[in-house]
């Protein structure tokens, strides 16, 4: 294989980025479970995990070991191929979308400019929607292949729910796209640089899309909570009526994979909200060169963390919707609201351009 040195550099760069991001993401998922149990615990006036390590900090590690050494039980009548395929699909779809998410600016190393992102597609956002739309299959197929009634009901419910809320999810984002005029996530963030005004009160506000698209953000984020099957929209795994929904029959590491994909999806959805509405990695940057590279990554992580905390907070606060309430909320409230937002935004954009 004759490769030019610049091609070699690109390949090595990509491999290193993928390895680092996978490591960070998996660690983040592990500690997100810890954070969730801790925060929910404190909301309910308990301590949460406390015994394994200081403040239970080694709990995720213990959980991981436990999942790996548990016996893997599959129902006798399960459809073997699809039963195996479903968790694999869930994992794949949850981790694929991370590839196009930018988490920082760029820096120069040995004459090459390195962007803090695995790849910058010019249809990045569409790629994420394509991947999340395929994520429905893992849930539907897991429910079907278990050949048991609770998983089947859970799978059907969640497919219907994810299809319904996917529309609102997309509609909420379209307003931002109309203002930005691009689908590249890096471009969208770069357009949010700076402050709103000079001298007035406005100069305190960063130029985030949130202030242009508050309704779009609300529609997006509510749909996103439903899309990730979280409380108050966690009907697919409503414990009280469906045991555990689509993953009732999964045990051991296959169950862990479903769990990890759910948390990975939460991180993806929060990252997109940060990029589209909250200026991504933009924030006050100062100091020497290395700090100028690290600070944006820090701002990005902080914003994503706030969303994740919000997710957990909501889980500790709100009860679950009933199924008909869920459908009515999605189709009769979120969808019209998203459409109205698009109408209003397009009118304003047309007026500004003319």
């Amino acid at each position, binding site marked *: 294989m004759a490769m030019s040195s610049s091609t070699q550099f690109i390949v090595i760069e990509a491999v290193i980025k993928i390895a680092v991001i996978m490591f960070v993401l998996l660690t983040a998922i592990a500690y997100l479970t810890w954070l969730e149990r801790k925060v929910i615990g404190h909301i309910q006036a308990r301590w949460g995990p406390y015994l394994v390590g200081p403040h239970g900090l080694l709990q995720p590690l213990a959980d991981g070991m436990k999942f790996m050494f548990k016996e893997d039980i599959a129902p006798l009548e399960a459809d073997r191929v699809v039963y195996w395929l479903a968790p694999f699909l869930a994992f794949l779809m949850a981790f694929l979308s991370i590839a196009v998410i930018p988490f920082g600016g760029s820096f120069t190393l040995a004459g090459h400019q390195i962007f803090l992102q695995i790849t910058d597609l010019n*249809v990045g956002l569409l790629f994420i929607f394509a991947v999340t739309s395929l994520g429905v299959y893992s849930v539907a197929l897991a429910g079907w292949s278990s050949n048991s009634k609770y998983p089947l009901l859970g799978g059907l419910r969640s497919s219907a729910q994810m299809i319904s809320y996917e529309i609102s999810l997309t509609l909420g984002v379209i307003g931002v796209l109309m203002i930005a005029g691009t689908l590249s996530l890096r471009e969208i963030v770069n357009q949010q640089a700076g402050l709103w005004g000079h001298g007035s009160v406005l100069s305190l506000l960063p130029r985030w899309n949130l202030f242009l698209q508050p309704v779009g953000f609300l529609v997006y984020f509510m749909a996103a909570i439903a899309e990730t099957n979280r409380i108050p929209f966690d009907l697919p795994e409503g414990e009280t009526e469906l045991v555990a929904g689509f993953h009732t029959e999964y045990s051991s590491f296959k169950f862990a994979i479903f769990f990890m994909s759910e948390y990975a999806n939460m991180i993806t959805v929060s990252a997109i909200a940060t990029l589209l509405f909250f200026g991504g990695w933009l924030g006050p940057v100062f100091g020497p060169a290395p700090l100028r590279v690290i600070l944006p990554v820090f701002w990005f992580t902080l914003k994503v963390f706030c969303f994740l905390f919000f997710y957990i907070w909501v889980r500790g606060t709100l009860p679950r919707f009933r199924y008909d309430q869920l459908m009515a909320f999605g189709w009769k409230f979120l969808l019209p609201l998203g459409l109205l937002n698009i109408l209003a935004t397009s009118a304003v954009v047309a007026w500004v351009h003319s």
Partner: protein
Amino acid sequence: MEILFYVFGGLAVMAALSVVLQRTPVYSALSLIVVLASLAVIYLLLGAPFVAMVQVIVYAGAIMVLFVLVIMLLNAGHEGPSQHRAKFARWAGPPLLVAFLAEVAVLIWKQYGLTSTANAPAVDASPAAVGRLLFTSYVLPFEVTSILILVAVLGAVVLAKRQF
């Protein structure tokens, strides 16, 4: 790049065969999803990322989900050997298939021959360019399709409402 084309082209053909040959409906549907996804990769290789993504979102992500849902709801099980096959199809089918394939081969041969590789001129396939075309040159078909879909949606609502 050419290797990728053959890999995904081959995958598409094999999955398409599997759609027809599988006995379990869910497997057929899954194979169809593989066909659609491989086609999306081929669009990507042709330099049309927007079309590729729309292919995945619309066909694999929306339409096929409904197919799979319906199959799951009906719980359509294993399909035995068909009892209702027409006698005519048994002896006339294979020769007709061969004739059809030969016809397609001849047409392709006449058009391109074996050696020539058709190099289409590069076109701008970005989302903006596709959108511009949709709202200028193809605005009439676009609007007619929208009305068609609207009628279909209304029809579906009327049909669903009648049940209650």
